[in-house]
């Protein structure tokens, strides 16, 4: 099936099975390798992208359900002012360890700060607990979100 989807502001055409998850369309068809495969089951958040502005586990969404909803990935998140600030905070606070989870973390954090510009610790827990970091960089992920929220 041929699908035309909007990714990071550009229209892209792919010819894939309707049940192919968005994650694999991005990674293997469009060569956008920033979104990561961690579990394939919706449990780890490494594959988080934005669909219509909402943080979404791309391993769980078949391409056939995307329609005209705009998609943003880590490769394009710098176009979002909050995303760009989070990227800068991640660098400044040296958040990554292995780095494998961090694209998903930044995508989830961008979603959080878009809906709640001044999140409480409980808001951070609720929005970010779907994103596993096996290196346990959680202290700095929390600090990075607060750093941006406090306009530093």
């Amino acid at each position, binding site marked *: 099936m041929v699908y035309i989807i909007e990714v990071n502001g550009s229209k892209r055409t792919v010819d894939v099975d309707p049940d192919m998850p968005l994650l694999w369309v991005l990674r293997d068809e469009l060569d956008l*390798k920033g979104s990561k495969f961690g579990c394939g089951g919706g449990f780890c958040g490494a594959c988080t992208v934005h669909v219509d502005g909402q943080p979404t586990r791309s391993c769980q969404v078949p391409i056939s359900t995307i329609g005209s909803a705009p998609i943003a990935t880590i490769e394009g998140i710098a176009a979002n002012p909050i995303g760009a600030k989070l990227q800068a905070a991640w660098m400044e606070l*040296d958040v990554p360890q292995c*780095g*494998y989870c961090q694209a998903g973390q930044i995508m989830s954090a961008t979603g959080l700060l878009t809906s709640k510009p001044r999140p409480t610790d409980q808001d951070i827990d609720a929005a970010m607990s779907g994103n596993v*970091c*096996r290196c346990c960089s959680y202290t700095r992920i929390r600090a990075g979100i607060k750093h941006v929220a406090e306009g530093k």
Partner: protein
Amino acid sequence: MATDLGKTNANLDFSRRALLRASLTFGGGLALHAILPNVAGAANDGAATEGSALTAFVRIAPDGVVTILSKNPEIGQGIRTMLPMIIAEELDVAWKDVRIEQAPLNEGVFGRQHAGGSNSTPENYMPLRRVGAAGRRMLIAAAAQEWSVAADECDTDAGVVQHRKSGRSLSYGALAAKAAQQEVPDLASVKLKDPKTFKIIGKRIPGVENAKIVTGQPIFGIDVTVPGMLHAVFEKCPVFGGKVSSANIDAIKALPGVHDAFIIHATEANPSKDPEGIVDGVVIVAKSWWTANKAREKLAIVWDEGPSSTHSSEGYAAQAEKMLSGAPSTLLRNDGDPDTALKGAAKIVEASYSYPFLSHLVLEPQNCTAHFSNGKIDLWAPAQNPGPGQKLVAKTLGLEEKDVIVHVTRGGGGFGRRLQSDFMAEAAWISRKIGAPVKLLWNRRDDMQHDFYRPAGFHKFKAGLDDKGALVAFTDHFITFGKGGKPANSSATMPATEFPAQLVPHLRFGQSVIESSVPTGPMRAPRSNALGFVFQSFMDELAHAAVRDPLEFSLALLGEARSLPTDPAKPDPQRDFNTGRMRNVLLHVAEISAWKDRGQLPRGTGKGVAFYFSHLGYFAEVVQATVSDTGAIKIDHVWVVGDIGSQIINPAGAEHQAQGAALDGLGAALGQAVTIEKGRVTQANFDSVLPLRIDQAPRVDVEFITSNFPPTGLGEPALPPVAPALCNAIFAATGKRIRQLPIDTRLLKA
């Protein structure tokens, strides 16, 4: 690019067993070629590599840009940043001018290129300082020649040589070509900086790939693309050691998008039965990974499950109980007369402990891209141990090692899993079979069900206290897993020097082995990650039985500062257990955690302390936890104090490693077990093995004490004390003793 235009003044230094050579680069810069000592100082054969096209370890370009190779795999431990910092410091360049490239695999040149055992720091700290210092001397010599002044009148700062007397200065870039003509200093005697003057070592330097990470650049193994590449999955027998009898290969091949499917028999692909080698299974190759993985739903394999299919965790536990009621089959240590001492003790304390198999749960599943062509193979892999991986592939394909080219990528976590190179052998076999480049990627189920697990274990302790509450007798019967009565590998062993050995007059350690074919291997802080839990929890039990403060009980047991030799015939004060260093970290963690005020904590909240010596690092940790009436555990705060020698090379990286290790240990204690039923692992994803999440992650304060010992590694030693400190905190909060991991919160209900 290095040429041999320059002076090739080889400098073989047998005392340090490192060799340095300088040459001019094509662009007119300086290239330093180093040949570093291999494992624990075993000499590399410099002659064999001399004259071959060496990769320059350090290059200084005419524009002043300094390129440094990072020799070891990066798996999140920060090594790609830390090792180049050491060279840059002694070379005396500005960190902003440094570019870092991953070194190719060549252990003949670079020494051991692994990420394991927290070895990178102790193995590389001095050799890399000497390489940097030698480069600096050559740049100074070039400037001195240029100005016709004595070299000792010149000094350096941030990539510039200065002659203060005359006020002249020249940049390293300008001097690089001339420096390449200078005599190479003797590495053994080259003058090193006084650590007090360090400008890079000891500073918080952020990860050198952070910019790529936060923008989603393709830097991990899973991101590798090779033109014409196909995608593969490999379905292995869920029962360890099982074989393929038959499979519906033709039906799979007929599926749309599937390129090929075939059976691999271990008898053909791994005739020597290498534990890391290929096991039986079915490969599916397709134009996309999704298509290959989906085709597995249609796969019908008849397995010959073999003798392991009756094994189960429950069965193992029953066997262990039976073994524990008898005598150990092997004596690991016997000091004094424990039986008589126990009879004479004022108080006897007995307890049995156990812990499960664990999976490494690296977030990036195992993968490898392989391209076999014309009798050679290129492999791209997030390997932790690429040298042995190269050997395994060479053996599997019957190639010479030189025809196996390994490109090490960044790894999305390692924790010891990628020390085994099974995924490389598989990808290599598949690429040769299909005659095309291929990326093999495991799914999460593959990753969790085909690991080299942290071995489970059981311990039965019996100890005696005298009438003053001092520990006088101690016995442990340890049950581990293996074959033929022997532990499966070193991860399944217990050292005869395990604490409190050498500190109790009457002590016996015995061992018995459960026969099992569950694959096991090293996991972050191998064996210490389990032994720390059982021994440090039992120590806490003893302190409470003696009605003593657990901290004071431990300090009394450690006694005065001295070194307890691992091998009495060969004392080595730099590597042996030093009771004084442990006392210091314990006292410091007590201070920063306000240990003495713990009596004022509210009901349901408690503090626990534990300590552990592993990988040459000394760590003491305090956990504060609150347990609700329903048994729910909230970890409030963790304090970590470590002594890893005279110098913390990158304080940011060090803090991250210590925090990460402590949280990793908590996650395992709270929610991780791999259980075996009918010879197979029952868990398949993160819904049944629970990684720690942000809402469970407490604040972790980390402090280091510096001591007058060589700097040592940090990937592992902060992990072992945290689980016992948590369980001891739970005891302080509830009076309930956790003797089995993961913690069963049902036992904590009020």
